[in-house]
């Protein structure tokens, strides 16, 4: 039996298609199904051309094939409104759900910070926070693992072209979810998140600033070393994750300035914010696959 986990992607939009392209290179995840709701959608056509099975009947169209095709993991790139139902139906059949929507019914997952814990516990639903969260929370955690962080604040600046209608209609969800994860995953006692949308042409590459207030005087050398180590961890799955400046120290304030360039699979390179989501989602599923192959976890039994 192949060590690869077989996967379905729900939502054939930009995110789903980019994810599919990344997945085709994966040593651990094999894309099998693309699920949509519109038979005329470009995304389903693209998936079909890439040799993937498709259904336009939503998750219900996939359910009958889950066992026969041994689907073990699903990626939900639809919307928060339908995610809970999608997750319930697939979890029932023993499919691990990687949630790329802001629904956040499962625990937040930021791969270099807490993925290992989720994989070991075989969490059946993990949420990938937000693009801003994926880009910045590793840096908050890099500081908080050295010493307590009283306050963590992130500013994500993204190109206008890379922000879809879902995010625009509910931008508060971005700020709330990201701030929550800066606390829960990043380890800051209090978190704040700001998002700025910039329409410049050519589009700017995603930029992120991370400020932390440490409780006591910052251990500059240890924090600098920790930040560089964390950047290297993220670069394993997002090679364009770059430390531009910092860490800069000003009293108890530690500031880090980042840039995130995507791989340019389906989404353009400037859309590092979207790329880091698909890359983190895939990395998450791969970790489950590795842990299953190593016998650390046992996937739900199937006849």
């Amino acid at each position: 039996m192949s060590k690869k986990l077989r996967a379905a992607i729900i939502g054939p939009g930009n995110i789903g298609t980019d994810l599919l392209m990344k997945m085709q290179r994966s040593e651990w995840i094999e894309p099998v199904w693309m699920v949509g709701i519109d038979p005329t959608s470009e995304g389903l056509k693209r998936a079909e051309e890439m040799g993937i099975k498709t259904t336009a009947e939503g998750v219900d169209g996939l359910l009958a094939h889950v066992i026969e095709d041994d689907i073990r993991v699903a990626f939900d790139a639809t919307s928060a409104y339908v995610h809970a139902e999608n997750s319930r139906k697939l979890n029932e059949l023993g499919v691990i759900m990687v949630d790329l929507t802001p629904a956040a019914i499962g625990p937040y997952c930021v791969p270099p910070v807490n993925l290992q814990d989720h994989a070991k516990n075989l969490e059946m639903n993990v949420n990938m926070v937000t693009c801003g969260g994926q880009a910045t929370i590793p840096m908050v955690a890099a500081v908080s693992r050295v010493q307590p962080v009283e306050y963590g604040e992130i500013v994500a600046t993204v190109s206008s072209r890379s922000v879809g209608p879902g995010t625009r209609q509910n931008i508060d969800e971005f700020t709330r979810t990201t701030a929550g994860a800066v606390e829960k995953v990043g380890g800051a006692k209090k978190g704040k998140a700001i998002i700025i949308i910039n329409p410049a042409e050519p589009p700017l590459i995603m930029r992120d600033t991370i400020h932390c207030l440490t409780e006591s005087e910052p251990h500059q050398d240890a924090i600098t070393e920790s930040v560089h180590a964390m950047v290297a961890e993220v670069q394993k799955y997002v090679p364009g994750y770059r430390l531009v400046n910092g860490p800069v120290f000003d009293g108890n304030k530690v500031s880090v300035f980042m840039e995130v360039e995507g791989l340019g699979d389906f989404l353009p390179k400037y859309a590092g914010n979207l790329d880091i989501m698909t890359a983190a989602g895939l990395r998450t599923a791969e970790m489950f696959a590795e842990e299953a192959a190593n016998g650390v976890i046992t996937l739900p039994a199937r006849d």
Partner: protein
Amino acid sequence: MDLKGKNVTLHDMSLRDGMHAKRHQISLDEMVAVATGLDEAGMPLIEVTHGDGLGGTSLNYGFPAHSDEEYLSAVIPKMKNAKVSALLLPGIGTVDHLKMAKDLGVSTIRVATHCTEADVSEQHIGMAAKMNMDTVGFLMMAHMVSAEKILEQAKLMVSYGANCIYCTDSAGYMLPEEVKEKIGLLRSELPANVEIGFHGHHNLGMGVANSVAAIEAGASRIDGSVAGLGAGAGNTPLEVFVAVLNRMGVNSGVDLYQIMDVAEDIVVPMMDHPIRLDRDALTLGYAGVYSSFLLFAKRAEAKYGIQARDILVELGRRGTVGGQEDMIEDLALTMAKERGLI
């Protein structure tokens, strides 16, 4: 043009935009003193919050001396006639802040987005309108796009429920002809029951002239600040503007001598630095850069030895928008590295 007999609603910014110039450190007593003085002078509308609006408290923009709740709770009960407004930038503040402001007695909410990104304001404008607030859509950095684009974005905000649309010259870059063109198109194309407003900055010394041009083109609300206390070279100085309106026979309902006295006796003594057109503030207007970047660029100059003017010009070249204050230190560090200073 003869504007005699026209009515205009003035809206004071000193306790919100002025927070930028005071690094968000205005005391509660100062807020109450200025607001009370303005109320007595007949100012109909006064904005009160952190400089970056509700929820602006942050390391990125500066922690204020007091929370928005504290400022609003101190000022609103003291007002006899003036109404209090609050600014909200989606991406910084949320509908939770909006509800808080409404509960504290804020009557006008101004939802601000970059001039091309109006669609992030749907939930905030929608909720404010639903709560029967005076709901304003505030299109910032309006010099960066065409009048047609501003109109397209204004229509979105109106469709969400805004009853007033602002063309906002956040960089103080516009000249009167541009103001007339943009305000004029909004006025001719938007429904007659939607008010049009103009918010200027004085970075090219055009605050008063631009505001007059806006009224000529159909604006009925004009922002300014008593003594000009605002970001950059300040907002349109309202005591000057009231004098001009008096000369033109335009009714603002504000008493000239009383607002002169608030400016001279209360606001000027509060200033950390004279609000004037120094070379850096002038650069904002000349290069089209967001006015609240001024003090951040000056601090970066002091810390990294790169001229604030050079930083601001580069920020303009890169097309930075409101809220990108974090770019300033980042850019100064990069420039200092390139020049071998660090």
